[in-house]
């Protein structure tokens, strides 16, 4: 049944997100075309408008993926539509997994759309060389390979945002449990859970630092003149901790749903 649930969750997201994807790529194309035209004053103004619109759509792609995931989660499990959701012959775990996978997929799709838009708007040999040189400068300073740097940067950013989305899901569940239908509690709980998750990760990194002096330096010194190896370790350790936290929160969400709901 998970695939059927996922089918409808994905349909919902496609319906709501495709407009941002299309507009993002559309403004990337117009930006590209306008950059390649004679740079008269009017064309320059239009270029700037196009760039602004493209970045607005890119921001919308990211923000809406997060917001729509929360709205879908809440409406499907706790609003009027929940009368259908909870009476379907499917397990609560499947209900949760479907929302989780849907968010994961659209987060990746959104990320790819953003990359594609930037590629369409700005790709040129010169820009590519500038970008790779810029990254090389950073990676040389940090004494790490470019591929490792890009991979870790993507993973950490991805896990950080996904952790925030997950906190929202748990906040919605606990908020409804505390006070049915009151959005305020869901937001409050989501925010508190996010803070707690961040503090736990920070605390665990500190504990790790007790056994690794290079990481402990990050807590002791205000200068950036620290062992670059500490950043590598920090990226790997925090990624692993994010994965553990996300897994634990998923289990708590499923456990709470399996205890039963109380729909107004």
């Amino acid at each position: 049944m998970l695939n059927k649930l996922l089918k409808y969750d994905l349909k919902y997201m496609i319906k709501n997100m495709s407009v941002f994807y299309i507009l993002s790529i559309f403004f990337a194309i117009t930006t590209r075309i306008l950059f390649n035209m004679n740079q008269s004053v009017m064309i320059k103004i239009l270029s700037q408008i196009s760039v602004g619109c493209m970045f607005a759509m890119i921001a919308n792609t990211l923000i809406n993926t997060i917001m729509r995931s929360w709205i879908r989660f809440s409406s499907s499990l706790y609003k009027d539509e929940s009368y259908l959701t909870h009476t379907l012959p499917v397990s609560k775990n499947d209900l949760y997994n479907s929302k989780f996978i849907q968010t994961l997929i659209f987060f990746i799709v959104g990320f790819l759309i953003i990359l594609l838009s930037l590629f369409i708007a700005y790709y040129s040999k010169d820009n590519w060389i500038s970008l790779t040189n810029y990254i090389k400068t950073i990676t040389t300073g940090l004494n790490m390979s470019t591929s490792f740097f890009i991979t870790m940067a993507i993973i950490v950013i991805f896990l950080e945002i996904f952790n925030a989305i997950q906190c929202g899901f748990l906040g919605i569940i606990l908020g409804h449990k505390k006070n049915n239908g009151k959005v305020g509690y869901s937001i409050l709980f989501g925010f508190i859970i996010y803070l707690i998750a961040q503090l736990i990760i920070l605390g665990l990194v500190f504990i790790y630092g007790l056994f690794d002096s290079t990481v402990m330096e990050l807590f002791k010194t205000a200068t950036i003149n620290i062992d670059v190896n500490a950043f590598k370790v920090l990226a790997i350790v925090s990624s692993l901790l994010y994965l553990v936290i996300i897994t634990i929160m998923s289990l708590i969400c499923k456990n709470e749903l399996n205890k039963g709901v109380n729909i107004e």
Partner: protein
Amino acid sequence: MISMKLLEINNLNKSFDNKQILKDINLNISSGKIIGLLGKNGAGKTTLIKLINDLLTPTSGEILVKGNKIGIESKKIISYLPERTYLNKEMKVSEIIEYFKDFYEDFDDKKAKELLNKLDLNINEHLTKMSKGMQEKVQLVLVMSRKAELYILDEPLGGVDPATRDYILDTILSNFNDNASVIISTHLISDIERILDEVIFIDKGEIVLQSDADKLRNKEKSSIDEIFRRMFKC
């Protein structure tokens, strides 16, 4: 008629914020009956129905459907019509039919389309463009197009005109099989009295009477509606 325990409720209690809504409910419902769950507004009818449909969690007690606790197996055989519009309004009627077909093995899409056609409801229309009454008809059609073993209809007559009430009752009567049972919750007793096999009176969260409808009429020498009015006179 086959007589077996289709629905069994034992010592069921439900409280909200220390306020007890349902008190020690014990109930047995067998197959092949049309049962009226009757009570005043706020008596606990909807709470009981929502508990059977996993929309509320019991404070204590148990609910068994054909011997199974409420879960996937019970949901496969219960067809539930809530008292509110609950379908995703962004969807077309045809998409909702597809949705029901995907999730309920016992859903008969041909029958649903036929019933909708009889009601002059366009399956290519979005629910947002339909009136509340039309949406309620779509919901009733979807629920009655399942070959379920237990239909639970919460206030199916609420807020509709008398002509539509007759249509709804006819739809219910002509679209469930003899082995299935139907629980109809309502306070509009006179409208459904003619179709009831059994009645359950609920008041202040307690079941105060469960009886065969004909036996009760003969015993009290009056209609169910009159008995209800006498019993719950304000």
